[in-house]
C-alpha cells in the first residue's frame, strides 16, 4: 500500500500532464484550414487506394502466441532464481538444479521444435 499511492498518483499526474499539454497547444496553435487533399489518409501522395486496413500476415499473431508461452516459462524461472541461493545454502542445490533442469529441457525441446518447424521464419 505504501508504494501503491505514489504509483497511482504518478499515473494520474502523467495522464493529466499529457492531456493538459495537448489541450493547451490546441488553444495556442493556428486553426486548421481543411482541404480534402490535406485531410485524406497519407498514402505517398496518391489517392487513397485501400480503406486503411489491408490483409496482414498471420505470422504476427503466431509470434505473439509463441511469445506468451515462452514468456510464462521465463516467469516460472524468476522465483526459482530468487530462491536458488537459499536452496544451495540448505544443501539442496542438486535438487533445485535438477528440478529446473527438467523444465529447461522441455523449454529447449520446445525452442528447437519451433525453429525446426519453420514457425519463426519470416520472408
Amino acid at each position, binding site marked *: 500500500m505504501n508504494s501503491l499511492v505514489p504509483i497511482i498518483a504518478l499515473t494520474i499526474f502523467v495522464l493529466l500532464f499529457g492531456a493538459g499539454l495537448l489541450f493547451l497547444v490546441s488553444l495556442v496553435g493556428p486553426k486548421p484550414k481543411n482541404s480534402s487533399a490535406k485531410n485524406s489518409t497519407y498514402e505517398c501522395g496518391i489517392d487513397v487506394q485501400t480503406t486503411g486496413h489491408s490483409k496482414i500476415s498471420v505470422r504476427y*499473431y503466431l509470434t505473439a502466441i509463441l511469445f506468451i*508461452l515462452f514468456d510464462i516459462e521465463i516467469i516460472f524461472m524468476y522465483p526459482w532464481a530468487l530462491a536458488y541461493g537459499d536452496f544451495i545454502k540448505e544443501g539442496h542445490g542438486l535438487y533445485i538444479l535438477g528440478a529446473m533442469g527438467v523444465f529447461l529441457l522441455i523449454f529447449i525441446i520446445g525452442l528447437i521444435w519451433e525453429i525446426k518447424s519453420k514457425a519463426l521464419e519470416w520472408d
Partner: protein
Amino acid sequence: MNSLNMLGDFFLSPVGINHYLGLSAILFCIGMVGVLRRRNVLVILMSIELMLNAVNLSFVTFSHFTQNINGQIMVFFVMTIAAAEAGVGLAIAVTIFKRFKEVNIEFFEQLKG
C-alpha cells in the same frame, strides 16, 4: 438481520475479506453475462478471461486473509492455463476467420468435421 442492514454493514465496515470477495463475485458475474450474451467469439474469450481473473482475485484474497501462500501458487497455475487457453482459442478463431470470414459464435455451430 434484514438485507438492508446487511448492505449498510457491508459498506460501512472497514475493508476486509468480504469486500474483496464481493468484488470478485461481481467480476465473475459480469464475465458470465458476457459469455452468455455476446456472439463474437473473441469477446467470449475475453469474458472467460474476466471470469478467470475473478477467481484469481478470490484466491489471492483467501491467501492474504489466512496468510497461506498456497493460494498464490494456484493463481500462478490459473494464469498459465488461462494464457494457454487464450493462445489456442485465438489460434482456432484466426483459422476459422481466415477460412470463412466469420467470428460469430452461432456460425460455429454449423461447422462440420
